[in-house]
């Protein structure tokens, strides 16, 4: 078990790894995520942290946790598979975009240009992991009763829902038809947090320390050690997408 070999808390070590990575030129980094499925307890905290961090509206989810019940009674168990964007090295979603609105940035993260996206959703059909969702412009509070004046009503909650997240370091209120409404959205490894030296929200929130993040080009990083383990696997590896998200099984 990596944590037993590693005297430091994984989060502390990943922060140190990140400092070294951020000192390098962006193109020299190779951000990867490692998810230890044996440690995932299926709490969905990562999903919720991501929703809160990126203020995701209804129908938009970057990191659902897939649950499966396996075995036959009395030998029954559940397994969980968090599924962020795989940030493929060979992504099927980017070449299909008719307007270059999605591409791999110099750090190897597949990103969206919200001002460029026309909302055709071709990239969604191309992704074999269903890691992209469309922003239909909906809010959780729409259609709810406003309540009595002394209650916190729809207006307050609606205003909160429309305040800007800081995806890609940009300020974007969700108003009218303005982007990201009408755009395809996806996990971006919390690039806005990385830029500030913080780990992605799903990593810091994981109560089981099941999610690791770092620079695979740094041989001393924790993720470099983890992806060299024999029990590492990739999702739908046969498609040749070369995911940057690794699973320990």
């Amino acid at each position, binding site marked *: 078990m990596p944590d037993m070999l590693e005297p430091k808390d994984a989060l502390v070590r990943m922060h140190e790894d990140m400092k070294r990575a951020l000192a390098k030129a962006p193109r020299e980094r190779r951000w990867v995520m490692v998810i230890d499925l044996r440690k995932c307890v299926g709490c969905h905290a990562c999903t919720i942290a991501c929703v809160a961090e990126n203020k995701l509206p209804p129908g938009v989810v970057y990191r659902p946790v*897939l*649950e499966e019940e396996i075995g036959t009674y009395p030998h029954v168990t559940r397994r969980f598979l968090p599924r962020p964007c795989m940030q493929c090295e060979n992504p099927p979603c980017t*070449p299909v975009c008719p307007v270059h609105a999605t591409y791999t940035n110099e750090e190897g993260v597949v990103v969206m240009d919200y001002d460029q996206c026309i909302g055709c959703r071709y990239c969604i059909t191309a992704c074999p992991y269903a890691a992209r969702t*469309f922003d239909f412009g*909906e809010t959780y509070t729409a259609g709810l009763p406003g309540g009595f004046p002394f209650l916190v009503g729809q207006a307050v909650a609606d205003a909160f829902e429309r305040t800007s997240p800081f995806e890609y370091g940009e300020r974007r209120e969700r108003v009218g038809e303005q982007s990201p409404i009408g755009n395809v959205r996806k996990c971006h490894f919390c690039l806005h947090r990385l830029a500030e030296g913080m780990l992605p929200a799903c990593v810091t929130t994981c109560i089981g320390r099941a999610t690791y993040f770092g620079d695979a080009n740094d041989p001393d990083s924790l993720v470099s050690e983890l992806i060299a383990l024999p029990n590492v696997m990739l999702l739908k590896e046969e*498609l040749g997408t070369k995911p940057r998200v690794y699973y320990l099984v």
Partner: protein
Amino acid sequence: MTFKRLVYAVCIVVLLFGVWGVYNRLAHGHQDANYGSYVVWGLWVAMYLFFAGVAAGCFMLATLDLLFRVEIFKGTGRLALWVGLVSLGAGLFQIWLDLGHLDRIWKVYLQGNPQSVMAQMVWGYTLFGLLMIAALVLATRQPDSKALRVLMIVGLPLSLFVSGAVGALLGVQASRPFWHVGLFPVQFPVFSLASGVAAMMAVIGLFGSEEDPNRPKQLWVLAIATVVLAVVKLYFLWADYSQSLYGNVPHNVAAVREVLFGRWWWSFWIVQLLLGTIVPVVVLLTPKWRHNPAVVGWMGVLVLIGFAAARSNIVFPALTVPELEALTRAFSDRRLTFEYAPSLMEWAVTLGSTAAAVLAVLIGAKLLHLMPKKEMA
């Protein structure tokens, strides 16, 4: 005359329904649409494939008159171009409404990605539409000009390219085995030709002039072509589905089973196969019916309805099969479901566009004198 009036009346009522749908789409965005992030393309995409196919097929038929000078099709070239243009308009209108940002369509032209099949298709169809307009103008003003022949010569391979591109749009997607069929770009031009033939059969059969001595012969040739193309179409379908089932790739098998036995089984067995293929073939091969223009025209309508169902049966099933099985229960939201049925707003836009297209064909044919009436010298 009474029948024509009835068609006008029905189309106007349906068009009003369509106006409500378009208003709803423009005022409320995609909120009243039933497609989501898993079944990401819905009725409008399927109907775009259908109408674009009719447009390409009509152009192919127009070459019989305007390029190859086939005697019995004399005078039908302009009509075929007009039907194709109107059909292309109906398809493009629906696919435009399907976009998340309608105002950004210009980016495909000025900032397009040449690697993207979708961008190639948009450029191709734009060029194709302009070419059809130019050909129609020339065919009206200078029917014997060399320029018209050049346009038709250029347009014929272009019509094959654009209809093939629609197949490639789906075929290049390795993540969807049901679509990832190497023969899709080959099949689609055949489907386009068949739907173009059906459209012309419907227009000439139901609205053609009884004074036109070529009309019975034209309908006879179109009927034979429909029967032959139906056999080819059935062969493609058999080859496609049997290989998918024998191949036993789970995602592919699931999609085929969804078409054959899923929620919309009747769309395949009853609409696509029975009404759209078998009934027209039987009727068009029956001597007492095949010489009745109205019956032949209605068979054209049935074939078109069958093709519309066929396009839906290509687009939806591939999307209703989860990429990862457990996704169905991973996150609960109405946009994150693998179930799909078009909403009232989606139906309104599609039916309204279809009604507008029928009206445009009829009014245009009258104003531009597109229906051949008597033997041309």
